């Protein structure tokens, strides 16, 4: 059983044989071809490529950080760093008894505000519907926004959240990661904030490097001494 990770570019034949194609691969005859630049992984009978570049494509249930761009009398539009705009209906914030005359949308969210939101629904025909009616969701009042490439979000989280835990523990910062590549860092101490931001940027730059968690750990600790 080969379980080798390989660096691939579009058009590369990853392997041949009876495998199930998953993310970013296509089946051509019996050849399995990558459609993205990334790292190929073979699990049991399925093959996927973890992309290293590309825009964020909304997926249902993803947590994203959005920025309010504008609003109509019935809904807000969020920039979610994707090719589509997030659609946040007013009922979601005001509740069922929302009335377009009585309630003023800008009293709750103004353009420029950052929100943590969840993709409630998304299909090919309409813009993604987002919701902020849940725990941990809603307007973000404080913190720093760090933008990374959306394809590197899984790397920032790490296997079972190891990477992000490492950073949070070493700096004491609270980090909210949006699947769309926007990350909000808030921290009591300015040093911790700077360090956490630096660590996040380091992950973004060196996403393809093996045992990155150790390198990040090393960086966080070395800075602590100096």
């Amino acid at each position: 059983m080969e379980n080798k990770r390989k660096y691939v570019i579009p058009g590369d034949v990853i392997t041949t044989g009876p495998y199930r194609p998953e993310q970013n691969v296509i089946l051509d005859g019996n050849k399995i071809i990558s459609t993205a630049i990334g790292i190929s992984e073979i699990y049991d009978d399925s093959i996927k490529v973890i992309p290293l570049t590309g825009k964020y494509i909304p997926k249902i249930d993803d947590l994203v950080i959005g920025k309010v761009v504008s609003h109509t009398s019935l809904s807000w539009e969020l920039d979610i760093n994707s090719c589509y705009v997030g659609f946040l209906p007013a009922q979601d914030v005001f509740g069922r008894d929302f009335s377009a005359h009585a309630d003023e949308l800008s009293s709750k969210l103004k353009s420029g505000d950052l929100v943590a939101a969840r993709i409630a629904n998304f299909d090919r025909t309409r813009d993604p519907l987002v919701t902020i009616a849940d725990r941990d969701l809603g307007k973000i009042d404080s913190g720093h926004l760090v933008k990374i490439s959306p394809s590197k979000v899984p790397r920032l989280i790490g296997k079972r959240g190891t990477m992000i835990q490492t950073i949070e523990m070493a700096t004491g910062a609270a980090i909210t990661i949006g699947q769309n590549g926007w990350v909000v860092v808030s921290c009591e101490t300015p040093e911790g904030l700077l360090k956490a931001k630096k660590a996040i940027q380091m992950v973004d730059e060196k996403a393809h490097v093996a045992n990155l968690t150790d390198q990040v750990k090393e960086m966080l600790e070395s800075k602590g001494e100096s």
Partner: protein
Amino acid sequence: MGGRDTTLVLLDENGIRCDGRKVDEPRRIMIKAGGLKNADGSAYIEFGDNKIIVGVFGPRDVHPKHMSNTDTGILRVRYHMEPFSVTERKNPAPSRREIEISKVIKEALEPAVMLDKFPRTAVDVFIEVLQADGGTRCAALSAASVALADAGIPMRDMVAACAAGKAADTIILDVNNEEDQAGQADMPIGYMPSLEKITLLQLDGVLTPAEYKKCVETGIHGCKIVYELQKKALTEKYFGNGEK
């Protein structure tokens, strides 16, 4: 462009061409992925004396809105030559030739990109020719394909392109400006190396069926050389030199 040099020897008795190459030797090619910060993906190519930079945006909102397609994303390509790219100043307004090349490059890339994943969006490819020396459409197509991959647009395969042609009654690889002007035929070919499919094939000139066949084969051979360099450019950018 200038007048034709009548004393030019396209192929000497030793089989050496006017710029010192052998018949089946391409020009020096250098491809670099990335380089532009504000574009989603970019590439730079030097193909002999051709210098071309490509920027890719998208997938993104379509403006004007009526151009969007609810079933699939659309690909838009602009090929543009700088006024200083040729010896005599070129009017920067899009010429008939540039409109044609924009169209053929778009159609050569379309089989490779999988835009059905992004309905109602557009991918824009901007090609700027900084210096031209024959064979810009092939060089531009090769660079555009690298830039699309750099932008993370899902692609079935890379598209590599190279021209073949006929000069002094011999089939040659990678036609340069002199050979294009004074030669007998020029055939740009776009090719998907893994899928083994041709996406662009044009022919300017007259060839016998046998020559035609040989010309296509020669061109595909050139495409494979270009493909290796495209691969190298992307590998260098994304994986450093740490080959796994």
